[in-house]
């Protein structure tokens, strides 16, 4: 937007342009229309309704997918219950584990196809889908497969029991990875599943249904229902569901927690965040700037644990902001399937509208906005990486989750001030610390009220690493040994 504002303008537009490096899509097969995956078969929705899923980078329709209604949810829950009673809960745990290993292996074999579809359906850069989403999804199945026959070792003096049917509702930012986070521990613990992918990103979940079919899982152990919020509500409210696992916004999480009041259903909620990323003056500044870029611009900022607030120590603020602006100019916004792309398409028109409303709001509140002013493609939904400076703790762009590539920068003088600002939020999902002093990492890390602390790194994920928030960022943990208890009765 305002190139002159950057102290050193590096011009990468002339002479340094990258040649297009598009990932091929010819090996990918997407059907024109997808039905619901219930009881081991693809079946037409009783609702008779279908909706389009589009590529947010060019607004072209990729496929039509079924809209599951209440009757379809009921059919899926019944299939999951039958599978639980007749097969899955009776199977030897080691055998259960072997089915899950199979899923991991088939995802690895078909990894490139999954990566391309993930990028096409959701708008994320192919490089991230290829290097992060899909390998981690396979790793998740592989990790939890091994737990299936070892659960007794995880909880001293307890005999873990499966819960029954798990209803799982996942978001659009990491479609296959979130499906893996939900399905893998549920199956390992002996539960059966009804999973609903997000309305805008249903394709990799449907491809996962193909994998589950190919792995020969007993029919009904995993059921996949596409649909909108009403489908999710029908799953939450179904009487024969024993557990709800939800990842999404804090507002919807609140509605779900309220809806489950008075029932015996267990729940885990992975909700919003507004993570503070703190840079101390003694940090390795270049490394920290890279970390900040990864923290907020990874996956277009569509990350619940994104480092969307930067707190930088006053003495290095000018340097950090200048370097950040310089680095932002090198970020390539554009075709998600191009291997050079850093920032892909915003997931949907609706989300773009929400982000743009926050950009307007930031300016209205008196903050200073910085964008590099790159040209957006003609079609599709795009947002240039954005910084806001001169913001106050009370500004809505500092307090509310934007879920886009928008960073609010504040400064601080003392360690206590940094911690106070970092914790001054309803959220508590993640936080970042950049410093060269080990003692400071431990003291600040202990004081930050958040479930994941990244010290001199950010946005790292692993199946063995528990993930989840404090305060209004959710209830429970996913990942690691801690993620098992969400799917087990320990009494």
């Amino acid at each position, binding site marked *: 937007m305002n190139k002159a504002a950057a102290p050193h303008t590096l011009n990468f537009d002339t002479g340094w342009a990258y040649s297009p490096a598009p990932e091929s899509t010819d090996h990918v097969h997407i059907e024109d229309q997808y039905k619901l995956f219930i009881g081991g078969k693809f079946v037409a929705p009783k609702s008779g309704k279908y909706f389009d899923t589009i590529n947010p980078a060019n607004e072209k329709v990729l496929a039509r997918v079924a809209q599951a209604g209440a009757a379809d949810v009921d059919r899926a829950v019944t299939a999951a219950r039958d599978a639980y009673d007749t097969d899955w809960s009776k199977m030897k745990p080691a055998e259960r584990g072997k089915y899950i290993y199979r899923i991991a292996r088939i995802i690895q074999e078909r990894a490139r196809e999954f990566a391309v579809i993930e990028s096409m359906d959701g708008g994320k850069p192919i490089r991230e889908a290829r290097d992060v989403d899909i390998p981690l999804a396979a790793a998740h199945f592989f990790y939890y497969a091994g737990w299936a026959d070892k659960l007794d070792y995880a909880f001293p003096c307890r005999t873990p029991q499966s819960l029954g049917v798990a209803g799982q509702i996942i978001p659009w930012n990491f479609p296959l990875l979130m499906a893996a986070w939900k399905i893998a521990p549920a199956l390992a613990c002996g539960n059966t599943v009804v999973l609903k992918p997000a309305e805008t990103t249903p394709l990799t979940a449907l491809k996962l249904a193909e994998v589950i079919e190919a792995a020969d899982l007993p029919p009904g152990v995993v059921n996949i229902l596409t649909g909108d919020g009403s489908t999710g509500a029908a799953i939450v409210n179904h009487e024969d569901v024993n557990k709800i696992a939800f990842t999404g916004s804090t507002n919807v999480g609140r*509605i779900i927690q309220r809806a489950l009041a008075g029932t015996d259903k267990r729940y885990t909620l992975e909700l919003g965040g507004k993570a503070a990323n703190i840079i101390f003056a003694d940090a390795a500044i270049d490394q920290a700037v890279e970390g900040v870029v990864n923290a907020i611009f990874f996956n277009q900022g569509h990350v619940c644990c994104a480092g969307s607030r930067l707190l930088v120590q006053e003495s290095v603020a000018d340097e950090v902001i200048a370097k950040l602006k310089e680095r932002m100019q090198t970020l390539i916004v554009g075709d998600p399937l191009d291997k050079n792309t850093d920032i892909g398409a915003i997931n949907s028109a609706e989300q773009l509208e929400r982000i743009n409303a926050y950009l307007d709001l930031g300016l209205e509140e008196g903050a200073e906005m910085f964008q590099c002013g790159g040209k957006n493609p003609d079609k599709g939904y795009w947002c240039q990486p954005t910084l806001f400076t001169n913001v106050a703790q009370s500004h809505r762009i500092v307090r509310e989750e934007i879920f886009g590539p928008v960073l609010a920068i504040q400064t601080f003088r003392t360690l206590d001030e940094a911690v106070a600002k970092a914790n001054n939020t309803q959220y508590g999902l993640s936080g970042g610390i950049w410093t060269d002093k080990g003692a400071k990492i431990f003291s600040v890390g202990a004081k930050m009220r958040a479930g994941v602390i990244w010290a001199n*790194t950010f946005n*790292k994920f692993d199946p063995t690493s528990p993930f989840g928030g404090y305060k209004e960022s959710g209830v429970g943990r996913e990942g690691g040994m801690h993620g098992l208890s969400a799917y087990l009765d*320990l009494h």
Partner: protein
Amino acid sequence: MDKTVKAEGRSIDSAAPRETQSAAKSASRGRAKPPATTRLGVAKTYKLYINGKFPRTESGRYFTVVDSKGNIAANMCRASRKDFREAVLAARSAFSGWADASAYLRGQILYRVAEMLEARAEQFVTELKLMGVDKRTASREVTAAIDCLVYYAGWTDKYQQVFSAVNPVASSHFNFSILEPVGVVSVLTGQNSALLGFVEAIAPVIAGGNTAIALAPEQNPLCAISFAEVLHSSDVPAGVINILSGYRKELAEQFSSHMDINAIIANSNDASEIKIIQEQAANNIKRVIIRTKPIAPDPYQIIDVQETKTTWHPIGG
């Protein structure tokens, strides 16, 4: 206002039943017994326990607790929403100090609470008897409460080792998960086992570094309020445990809806109450722990009010 309260206080004393008077007498162990005709017993005024002090309710309201024979045992403070909010403020202010106290120190303080309870055992046996518990059962309940405190005192520096983890991530990072207290916890204790139920509910909460606001059992609150005196003489920092008496129906909603409470523990069998608690808890995504029956002490009750924090750091030069 002050005068009225004092006048009320006096009238409670003079109206105190024989049982309460003898309880007061039995508490004055080791003194020569004064002639019954000249010495009137001094009954205790039961008040709230907020921020290490014993205030009356700001509302000036009271309710009457009757003993097993139908006599008035005490006029209890009927705590208000405002009293509860004061207690939350106290618990929040005390939180970081208590959470940051070393596990060893928390263990010693809990052990000290056990010591103090042991020293006052007779007082609690008397209070339990007053409410209709036979002597043997009452003694057993008091000793079980003492042992429960010793049990959790021992856990303070062990649960972290049992339940935390170093996670073998595939990338070049050192990654570990530890437990941290969830924050301020509200506790609605069960109606039975006036002392033991209360101690079993709050001990794991504070053993794990949380601070608490607990509601005494509505019809059986004497022991819980007297337990505040034990806490008060045990180096438990002010605000770490706050104890209210009052109407559960009136206060349950406050305990579950307040935005600065991180978790609620409710011993309850009442389906409609459980539903209200769970609904209100959603205001700020509280952790809700419902216990429908008494359970023996175990470390999982500490874990119920802990958060898992996972920290990553790169490995390399």
